[in-house]
């Protein structure tokens, strides 16, 4: 009788185990992450990964070494910069990186995404520029072009959809800045026939966002497990985006407004009403007035920006639609002054190609956005393990205190002995 009883108990345990694993399969779809957007009762939005709230603590990742340009495919670098970077990111509390493009060598990209996830738990937002910076230049009014881009994107989706660590897709970057014809202008006879500038701009917006929407629907058919984000510059074209791009799950905006984001989240809520993450935001570490590195102001600004993002996350006092952001950027890029002048790639140029008055610590310089200095990690010409030695800036540590507070102060090195 006793043995039978024990047998029954063991059998019940086995059955319960099977039931649980069945539940797991159902919930996670054969072991994949379950990624979803949840709208709360109060209208706030949350990103959920495996049913847990996930606030994107991200960085834009493009670790171009000193002496190289954006054409260098770091994903093929045998020194694997993401190994050193991944550890630093993990210590800091980064949970996501944003990649602008998968690059030409998809296998390398896939391996990197996987390795960042398995080693450090860092997920990836994978983007596609939708041909915006390719040659020939984009024309979203041309079927041939859009068919070509669609095919490329869907091929990429098919390839990456099962990659562990993939968080979501991000379609486009600042492609909407082409609507007014000043960046990568494109047109069609129908657009040209329109009378006013505003009508032409609105027509381009309709065409572009409709294309993105169709693409989003196709992506979801191939890959129902991942969210699709509309990449947008600022809130430009938001009204048209809401009308013609309703099938995206969220929007990822690039915003540079200084210490705080003003009414940005309110505007998104009013006009688009989907969750939003900042696919780019940041502050450079160079003071265009003093012409010196300025880590203090970079840290101060980034901290303020981050606190503003948190303020607008679910359950807080703001708009409740922010699901995080990706700081621009992880490391400095020394090629930004000129993608043609190789000599300049070896110099940490202090040129500022544009200005933004809201970065008031050096706004009086006029042009104060020093593109080569946006990293929260600087680069040294000295190599360590085959890559430029990483020099975390003050912003790294300040953000670490916010993103990974449990580890703050744990590694107490004590007071260093000074050489006598």
């Amino acid at each position, binding site marked *: 009788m006793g043995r039978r009883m024990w047998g029954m108990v063991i059998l019940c345990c086995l059955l319960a185990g099977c039931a649980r694993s069945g539940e797991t399969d159902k919930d996670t779809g054969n072991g994949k992450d379950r990624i979803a957007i949840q709208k709360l009762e109060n209208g706030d939005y949350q990103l959920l990964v495996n049913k847990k709230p996930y606030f994107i603590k991200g960085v834009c990742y493009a670790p171009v070494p000193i002496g190289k340009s954006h054409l260098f495919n770091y994903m093929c670098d045998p020194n694997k910069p993401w190994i050193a970077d991944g550890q630093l990111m993990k210590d800091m509390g980064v949970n996501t990186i944003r990649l602008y493009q998968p690059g030409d060598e998809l296998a390398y990209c896939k391996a990197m995404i996987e390795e960042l996830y398995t080693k450090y738990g860092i997920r990836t937002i994978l983007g596609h520029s939708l041909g915006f910076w390719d040659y020939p230049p984009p024309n979203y009014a041309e079927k041939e072009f859009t068919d070509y881009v669609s095919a490329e994107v869907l091929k990429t989706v098919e390839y990456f959809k099962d990659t562990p660590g993939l968080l979501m897709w991000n379609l486009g970057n600042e492609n909407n800045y082409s609507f007014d014809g000043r960046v990568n202008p494109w047109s069609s006879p129908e657009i040209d026939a329109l009378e006013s*500038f505003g009508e032409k701009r609105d027509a381009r917006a309709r065409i572009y966002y409709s294309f993105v929407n169709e693409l989003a629907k196709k992506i979801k058919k191939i890959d129902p497990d991942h969210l699709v984000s509309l990449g947008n510059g*600022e809130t430009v074209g938001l009204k048209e985006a809401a009308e013609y791009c309703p099938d995206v799950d969220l929007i990822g905006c690039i915003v540079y407004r200084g210490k705080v984001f003003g009414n940005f989240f309110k505007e998104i809520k009013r006009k688009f009403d989907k969750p939003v993450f900042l696919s780019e935001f940041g502050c450079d570490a160079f003071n265009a007035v003093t012409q010196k590195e300025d880590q203090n102001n970079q840290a101060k600004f980034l901290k303020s920006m981050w606190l503003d993002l948190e303020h607008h996350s679910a359950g807080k006092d703001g708009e409740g639609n922010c699901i995080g952001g990706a700081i621009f950027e992880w490391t400095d890029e020394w090629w930004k002054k000129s993608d043609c002048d190789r000599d300049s790639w070896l110099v940490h140029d202090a040129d500022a190609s544009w200005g933004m*008055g809201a970065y008031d610590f050096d706004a009086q310089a006029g042009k104060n956005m020093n593109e080569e200095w946006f990293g929260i990690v600087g680069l040294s010409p000295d190599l360590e393990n085959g890559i430029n030695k990483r020099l975390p800036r*003050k912003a790294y540590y300040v953000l670490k205190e916010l993103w990974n507070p449990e580890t703050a102060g744990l590694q107490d090195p004590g007071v*260093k002995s*000074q050489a006598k």
Partner: protein
Amino acid sequence: MDRILYSSRKETVRRTPWYRQFFVVCAAEIMCLLLAVAAIGQEVKSGEGVFLEQLKDQAQKFLDGQRFSDMLDYLSGLRAERTDPRERFYLEYYTALTKSQYLDHLDKQEDWQHYYALVHAFDAEIIDTAAKAAAENISQTAAIDMQYLAWKAYLREEDEAQAETSFNELVKRIVAYTASEHDLSKIQETAALLSQEGKTRQLGALFAMYKEYLLNSKAAPEAIEQMAKIAAAYAADDQMDMARVAYEHYLSIIIDRYAPADCIPAMLRIAGQFRHHQFRRSLDAEFAEKIYAEIETKFGEQALGEAALFARAYNLYARGEYERADEEFNRFVRLFPASMFAAEAYTRLGIVNRYFLAREEPATASFRKVMDEFPDSGYAPLCTYQSALSAQFQQDNTRALEWYGRLTGSAGAYAAEARARCAEINTQQAMAEAVSYPLEHRVLDPENATIVLTLLSDPSGVFIGNPLFWKATAQDFSAGTVQPLFRYQWFWDTGSNEAPGNVPGFETSYSTGSPKLVCFSAKTGDNENLIFADVWVYDLVVISPASEQSVPAGTTVQFSADIDPATIDAGDFNWQWQISGPESFSGEGAQFSRKCEQPGRYQGRVTISGNGVEVSRPFVFDVAVR
């Protein structure tokens, strides 16, 4: 009864009563006891004093050498041996000091890895030690020093409220110490530290409290002059920002307390330290002008005197305030025509008018005045040359040759230039461009001309669809009123209206809300400058009823609208609602409610007005049959 003592003399001696002897003996013993206690006390103090001296010496040795870990090891060793509460107090004090300085060191070195690993723990300890120091009240000066460290700790922790409280406490302690000990050292030390840290506001607060103390204690002039001495010491040390803060408070006391005969010379002395001199540029000449203006306001035009009036005019000239400089130099020569500075004043008037204000007539007149009435002045060659230049430029060659001729014969100043100009006239060549260009364009240094931009638009309260007029100006102050040709450009944040061309102003309206960033640039030659402006473009948004909403008849409908973004105060506007349909009604305010009984289609309009704005938005809703 007196005791009878033995005496060699056979006489009766009256003895001291016993109680008197007892009293004397007791008093003597008490005195000895007191002396002994004092001696012991002195001995204790001396012991403590030696210990403190030791600590100070070691601190100087280690901390000046940035040997922070050695200092902490040393203190740790002492902590193990010392049990006296006072000594342990000082050990804690020096530990806190060392840790605070170590954090400063890491900050300066930008060694963020170590800084962030230690800062919070160290700051908590420092704050805790400061609180204990205040409670134990062992040493006023140490408590003050600890309070300063605690304030810095709160700043590092970005706890603004506690930092403010802590600083106010620090200042109170310092003033209390100064009043009780008549010792200014703590004020001076703290002021020096604040200046090093660039904490001008806190420095002002410190001196403000000290000033209040001086006024409330009806301090004698000697005490007030102490503040001037502190300020003078800073000025002598070239710490002009600290000197200014101290002098400002000092001046605010003496202006009301001193007689003019004492006040004015003191003010002029201070102004003299801050103004521009010909061979010494000031970092804060604006303060000098402020003092001159104060003297004139309080004591009248005559109070300045010859030397001060000239100094003031020169100061304005050196600050680039050319209109004001012109006024003051003119006033000077009017009031003091025979002054030894008159020739220089006229020369400066000529330069200001020719090169900065583009007023040729007064410029020529001024140069001629020196040339004709002060021929022996050191400024005469310059003025003669300038007069001749003017004549040559105006093609009055006879005069030009005559005046150049006064210079060509000598080996003195402008001789070579005059000869070159004469050669131009005699060979009928044009003036060298380097010479004529300034006269023509009034630009002294075109390579380094500074373009100052001013945005004249006031883009507040802009609503979608409403006109906004953007206007900006560009000025090159080195060019005077004859401005170079600027090329303008306007940049927009993308997605907005088409950017206009080379115009200083234009009208536009926005069709989308959201902040706009507008940039105006002006360029002349290779010089360019940019100015940015942010503008919020607002939208009036009907929130309720939703567009084309249908509500059952008899429902109370909420009407509400909002201004987006909410950075503008909706209460600044008048709100009017007009609804027409099966029944017509109106409403006021950003929201109101009304029961709608009659089914049918309703058309409404909400309008806001005020602050020069009128914006309205239509909306439609239906009331359905129940």
